[in-house]
């Protein structure tokens, strides 16, 4: 009698456990469907995921400094990736996300330096050097050709 009761209660406990597990699984599935991010941390919406990948590649991880937050395993990079995902889900634009990061970490956080007043020298210096080089080459060749013209009579027959 006693053993039957224990068997029954054990069976009942077993059913309860299975029921609970099913309920948990169902809840988990429902959560996965509702959540904007899947189990691998990817955004459900492919358009958002594409923007997320592009943005996270353009942001510098400030701990390792030569890696983007997409590549870095640093804790900060992970937390910044979370920040980008959350802002995308909240409907922020790319430039709002970049502004958010620059306001906190400075221009250095961006791999793509925007063309602005204070960055004009960075963007313009190659062209500036090209112009300077062209002027130098022009002057040198002109001076040489003038020299050879001047020299000509002395080389030719008198």
């Amino acid at each position, binding site marked *: 009698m006693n053993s039957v009761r224990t068997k029954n209660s054990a069976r009942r406990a077993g059913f309860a456990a299975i029921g609970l597990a099913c309920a948990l699984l169902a809840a988990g599935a429902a959560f996965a469907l509702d959540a904007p991010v899947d189990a691998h941390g990817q955004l459900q919406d492919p358009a958002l995921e594409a923007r997320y990948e592009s943005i996270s590649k353009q942001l510098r991880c400030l701990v390792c*400094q030569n890696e983007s937050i997409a590549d870095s395993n640093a804790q900060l990079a992970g937390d910044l990736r979370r920040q980008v995902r959350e802002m995308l889900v909240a409907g922020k634009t790319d430039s709002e996300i970049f502004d958010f990061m620059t306001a906190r970490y*400075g221009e250095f956080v961006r791999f793509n330096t925007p063309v602005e007043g204070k960055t004009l020298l960075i963007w313009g210096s190659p062209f500036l050097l090209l112009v300077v080089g062209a002027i130098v080459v022009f002057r040198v060749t002109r001076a040489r050709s003038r020299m050879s013209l001047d020299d000509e009579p002395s080389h030719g027959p008198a």
Partner: protein
Amino acid sequence: MWKFLVPMALFLGLVVFFVLGLNPNRDIKALPSPLIGKPAPVFSLTDALDPTKTVSNASFKGQVYVLNAWGTWCIPCREEQDTLLTIAKQGVVPIIGLNYNDDRARVQRWLQQLGNPYTAVAFDPDERTAIDWGVYGAPETFLVDTHGQVIFKYISPLTLEVWEKEFLPRIEAARRSGA
């Protein structure tokens, strides 16, 4: 004359760049904070020692205060601890601790074992407040003036020399202008 002066000027320009850029005392990882001159980000977090209490920098409004970002996982923070305790003993300004990415039990153990230099320690386990302050490598120490503006940031463990040279004069000046 020009043939001499132009290359000379270019050369001297290069020398200036090299002296600035190759200075061995310059910390190339220390970045200028865009927060300087801006209002300090306001936070309200739980107290690391007592989760039922909140710590907010809003309650330090009108005072010059120091905010020190740290974590028990940060080895240089351990190095900085003695300096912080000495500074706390001077009692010049309140020191708010911003503990981030950490475990509460570990934080409490750290503070019990090593001593607590902080007026209050805000507990920021998911780094949200630390991100708002642009923290990227602990320890980082901020100085906020009476108008609630960030006026200085120091990255690296504090030393008494840095405290006396960089912080104390700025605290004095902030108090004079704020009074």
